[in-house]
């Protein structure tokens, strides 16, 4: 098992390398650079020449890539063209927000989807089941920007229950528990927006998985042994039905940590997703490279965690 993990982690290296090459090529293919959009007739054209030189933009693409690679390997992520600050500092300031939002979305997804799915599966084709099925289809087919705007309209503008931007109330100067509650208050709408599709999908998934498991022969065996229905559900049906969710748990981790680009943008949530969008608009490629590399790493890690978790919970899976 440990050997397997080690091998998988080693494969990260060539994969991340390929991703970086691909990414760098895409950045280069886009016309113009970070200073094209900033042209200010009052500025001396010489100033841009100097800036391009300072950031190495006058070199050939290969040279630029090698320079970036060398710095990256030394943990040097470069300086943002726009913010004129080290990229590591910019990411450091925002990654906490992204992780917090991701965890909240995670908790919402699993604490709602699994019980709702089981509830549905326990009374298939009933009024409740149909209602939840309908709701899930609405959830699945709603794009997250639309869900976000709808939530803002309903719960911020109309009802004024929740704030619609930022992570804290500006200038409130709260501390301790109050600050945390304030943060939760801010995260609710973005977290719902981020998890709504997953909640809908996992409710459906749990429902069909539980229904299928109930038809299995070993469930009949359990009843034939005299196991009461509630224990059959918990010990035999759910244990088998929820196994595949563990895989999704790992995959989601990668995706949630790599930054919710749309949600963070809608709610002006200062995370790495929002940072990335801003960097793309500004052609701020040190940020683009760093955030994308980080996101790729998280996705790879999430995949690995998914595979490991699956082996932990399912005795039939063994890795050599």
């Amino acid at each position, binding site marked *: 098992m440990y050997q397997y993990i080690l091998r998988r982690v080693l494969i990260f290296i060539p994969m991340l390398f390929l991703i970086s090459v691909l990414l760098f090529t895409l950045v280069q293919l886009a016309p113009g650079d970070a200073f094209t959009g900033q042209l200010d007739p009052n500025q001396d054209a010489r100033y841009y020449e100097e800036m391009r030189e300072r950031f190495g933009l006058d070199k050939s693409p290969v040279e630029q890539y090698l320079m970036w690679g060398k710095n990256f390997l030394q943990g040097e992520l470069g300086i943002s063209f726009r913010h004129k600050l080290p990229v590591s500092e910019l990411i450091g300031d925002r990654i906490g927000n992204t992780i917090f939002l991701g965890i909240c979305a995670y908790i919402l997804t699993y604490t709602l989807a699994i019980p709702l799915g089981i509830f549905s599966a326990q009374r298939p084709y009933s009024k409740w089941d149909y209602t939840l099925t309908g709701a899930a289809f609405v959830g699945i087919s709603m794009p997250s920007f639309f869900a976000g705007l709808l939530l803002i309209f309903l719960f911020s503008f109309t009802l004024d229950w929740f704030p619609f931007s930022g992570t804290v109330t500006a200038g409130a100067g709260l501390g301790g528990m109050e600050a945390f509650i304030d943060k939760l208050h801010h995260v609710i709408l973005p977290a719902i927006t981020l998890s709504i599709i997953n909640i809908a999908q996992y409710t459906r998934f749990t429902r069909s998985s539980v229904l299928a498991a109930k038809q299995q*022969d*070993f469930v*009949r*065996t359990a*009843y*034939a*042994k*005299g196991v009461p229905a509630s224990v059959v559900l918990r010990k035999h049906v759910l244990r*088998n039905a929820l196994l595949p969710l563990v895989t999704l748990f790992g995959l989601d981790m990668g995706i949630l940590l790599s930054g919710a680009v749309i949600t963070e943008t809608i709610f002006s949530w200062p995370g790495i997703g929002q940072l990335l969008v801003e960097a793309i608009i500004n052609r701020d490629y040190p940020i683009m490279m760093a955030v994308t590399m980080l996101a790729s790493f998280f996705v790879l890690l999430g995949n690995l965690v998914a595979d490991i978790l699956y082996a932990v919970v399912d*005795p039939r899976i063994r890795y050599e």
Partner: protein
Amino acid sequence: MNRLTEMTALLHIRNLKTYFFGDDGTVPAVDGIDFSIGKGETLALVGESGCGKSLTSLSVMGLVPGTGRIVEGEVLLEGENLVEKTEEELSRIRGNEISMIFQEPMTSLNPVLTVGEQIMEGLLLHQRLSRQAARERAVQMLKLVGFPRAEAIMDEYPHQLSGGMRQRAMIAMAVACNPRLLIADEPTTALDVTIQAQILDLMRDVKEKLSTSILLITHDLGVVAEMAERVVVMYAGKVVEEAEVQDLFDQPAHPYTEGLIRSVPSLDEEKERLYSIEGNVPSPDRLPKGCPFAPRCSEAWEKCLQKEPELMEIGHGRRVRCFLYDPEEGGSR
């Protein structure tokens, strides 16, 4: 209730009817079954696929699937009617007094629980043993069913065992609480021939040691000859014949039973083409008028198409459902 009186019988099934209530009508899948199983007896229930064998056994267990329901009749376990029991009362009987093993050893065990855990589950439920005591008993059961390294098997998962080993584990699980009746629904059908023989030997052995009665469901008459003392033949949800095993093979009474016996391949008749009864079992929702076997029966005459025969006693503890044995209806046997 011919030879078995209420006193010696363990289980009486009386006029049991289990119907399915689907969207397109009622399906009488088990339609008025009567038979009894004596203490320590092995009774075989035979018949072609779809005649209601499994459903009869699931009705005894109170585990009728889907839209099915027991609509009439009694299942008496030493005088107690199981049909009237609540789900809670039944769960105390299942696995404890009556237990069951199934055809598919591959899928009948829970893939994510160890074999030991699954054998101990029933013991912990019914006998209120400590985990330690339950484990010891489970190991003992695994040894009984022929696992020399029983301790190791306890911690293995079903996928680590072969089909034959899984069926042994199923048997260990089923008899762990020393039930009075063991229902085995095609316990060897899914296994290789050599493994089949081993499992049958094992069942005989376990029956001797624990003096359990067995209801053996099969469509393999070879298995019947080897295992059973008495045979009940089912056709289209009804009992059509009941006899001692020797009598049944020597002189089958019902034309359907004759057909079944003739269709068993035998070694010295190799050259002859294998006989099989023409036609198929009618589906229980489309039964013909009169004797349900009439469309396939070479002995049938007009009578058989008009009216359904009753199950009648023909002496020597035998019962048969056929007009041939009813002189009043023009029967000639």
